[in-house]
């Protein structure tokens, strides 16, 4: 008979841990629920910090190394908080041959950051995507969850200006 291990208590009083606990319960506190739980944490908090990883690992009874391994293996998980706005440039094949590299170049120069980074004032995060599946609209850019199609260098610069000035 498996010995009873008490479920750890959440790191703090934040209500969002309730969502995480719900997912953990739904997965039967089993190791197989690790990815699902990390998805919930990222959805609730925006990113995965050490405290969250420790809590999830303990609750699902997996070594911290495994939780960290999974969190760093998948591109979708991020260990750093994102900026106020995010700009995702699609680098799928269709977008690539229709000028996505030029868009990325322009944005990198304007913001002075590389993909995966956030500007010093925490205003804008720049990301690249493998493929958004909006290939009919190449090149595509996602501004804060909103997909824009057939984007020109000028258009992306204009859009970013609105974020950085405001």
């Amino acid at each position, binding site marked *: 008979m498996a010995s009873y291990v008490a479920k750890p208590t959440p790191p703090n009083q934040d209500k969002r841990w309730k969502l995480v606990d719900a997912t953990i319960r739904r997965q039967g506190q089993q190791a197989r629920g690790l990815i699902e739980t990390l998805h919930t944490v990222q959805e609730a908090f925006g990113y995965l910090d050490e405290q969250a990883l420790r809590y999830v690992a303990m609750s699902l009874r997996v070594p911290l190394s495994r939780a960290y391994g*999974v969190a760093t293996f998948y591109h979708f998980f991020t260990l750093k908080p994102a900026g106020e706005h995010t700009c995702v440039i699609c680098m799928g094949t269709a977008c690539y041959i229709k000028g996505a590299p030029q868009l990325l170049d322009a944005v990198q120069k304007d913001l002075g950051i590389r993909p995966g980074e956030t500007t010093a004032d925490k205003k804008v995060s720049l990301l690249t995507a493998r493929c958004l599946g909006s290939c009919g609209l190449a090149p595509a850019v996602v501004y804060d969850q909103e997909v824009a199609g057939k984007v020109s260098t000028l258009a992306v610069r204009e859009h970013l200006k609105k974020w950085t000035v405001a």
Partner: protein
Amino acid sequence: MTPEELEQIAETERTAQGQFTQKVNVCVAAGCLSCQSQAVKDSLDQEVAKRGKKEHCQVKGVGCMGLCSEGPLVSTSSGVLYKKVEAGDSAAIMDSLDGKPVEKLVCRTDVPFFQRQQKIVLENSGNIDPDRIEDYVASNGYAALIKALTEMSPREVVDEVTKSGLRGRGGAGYPTGLKWSTVAKSVGTQKYVICNADEGDPGAFMDRSVLESDPHRVLEGMLIAGYAVGASEAYIYVRAEYPLAIKRLRNAIRQAERVGLLGANICGTRFSFRIDVRLGAGAFVCGEETALIASVEGKRGTPRPRPPYPAMEGLFGQPTLINNVETFANIAPIIRNGGAWYAAIGTEKSKGTKVFALAGRVENTGLVEVPMGISLREMVFEIGGGIPEGRKFKAVQTGGPSGGCLPTECLDMPVDYESLAKAGSIMGSGGMIVMDESSCMVDVAKYFMDFCMTESCGKCIPCRVGTYQMHRILTAIGNMTATPEDLKVLEQLCDLLKHTSLCGLGQSAPNPVVSTLKSFGEEYRAHIEDHKCPAGVCGVEQPVGETV
């Protein structure tokens, strides 16, 4: 849920729909949504309400109509298709329902893009509301499941699929019937069905469209598969990057559970089935079946050597059937119309139809479903409408990072599994990207190598180190600093990766390089010997080896 109750739902829905004399369908799949099609639908709704025509005119959000580049698309019951519709056009469209179509918005449907298609997987896309199970049931939905459960034995279902000649639509083309019978014969306490919706190929969006436009079709295919192989639990592994597809899929599962098409004792039989959604987290390698299984188990998505194949030892060590979204989407029509009907479509070895995502430098980009065996020329120049801006065709890329670039000489080749493999590419999941003379083939090869290098899981050395070295050489060629010796090493590496990598990712990673070397060798030589890029893409200032 009994067959009679299902018929009742269909009847009620058909009567309800019959009351509308006019219908306006607005595409609300991701492509058109990002061109503000929701605003178009809302404004049409308001216009209908304003005119007091709510009883006669139905405005419906439907799935993908195919021609994504001209979105938002709107179709009406008078048989007219409108393109690039804006919210301000709704009054004009409402006026046109009784009279002449709105000239400036009309999209011609007598062109090859629409005429050359044959729709089986996409038969409901653009016609039904993906958020309502009733609409699916009214268009013959779940009839195949009822037929399988009440009239056929599991063995007969497998035989019917075998007879259809259907092959896996994920890329490799393994005969589906054979896979099903292997899982059916395997012994295990619990069998699983997994639907692979981790569509990672850049430039491919067929699975996303099917899930967004007709999610119940995939569920029905999985249910039939579960019955045929004796499984009672299933997972759909979807990319987290497809939020809309996930939302519609979850909604579809809830609806099917509510009416009793999922759950315990379906249709009063002993067959019980449960489907759960699992989110991917952005790893291309998880499209490989053993890596996908690891990911569903909550682990890092790394592949393992096969055998044992998942059909014997898969999820949680139990026999597991893994098929692609499009494969499952083909099942219901096969059971409904019989395997012989399906086998009559396509070529001798590749049966049925295939959905392609046509993108890149062509006039018409979007989703098309064509019978197997159609020529590439028809795909690019008739359905695709040719190359824009009067440029010259250069190559068509199929199969994503595992595929190859096919030059002009291959244009008259039929599109089927064998022909594409012979030409050095693969069918892949269905991405088809057209390139014109402004694309440099070395740059394209480098792009795909960068992809494979970043996506390599790192478990086996040939793939982890080999892709890095190949990318380094390709970057050097692009920077005009490579030597002829480098080219030789590149060719050796192609061979090495192909034969010694653990999984499909590494084995097929050299394909883009091999195929471009074969057809566009002079471009490589121009970079190395003359320090020139014929397409004018490669420059000297690109950083070496560093990627994102």
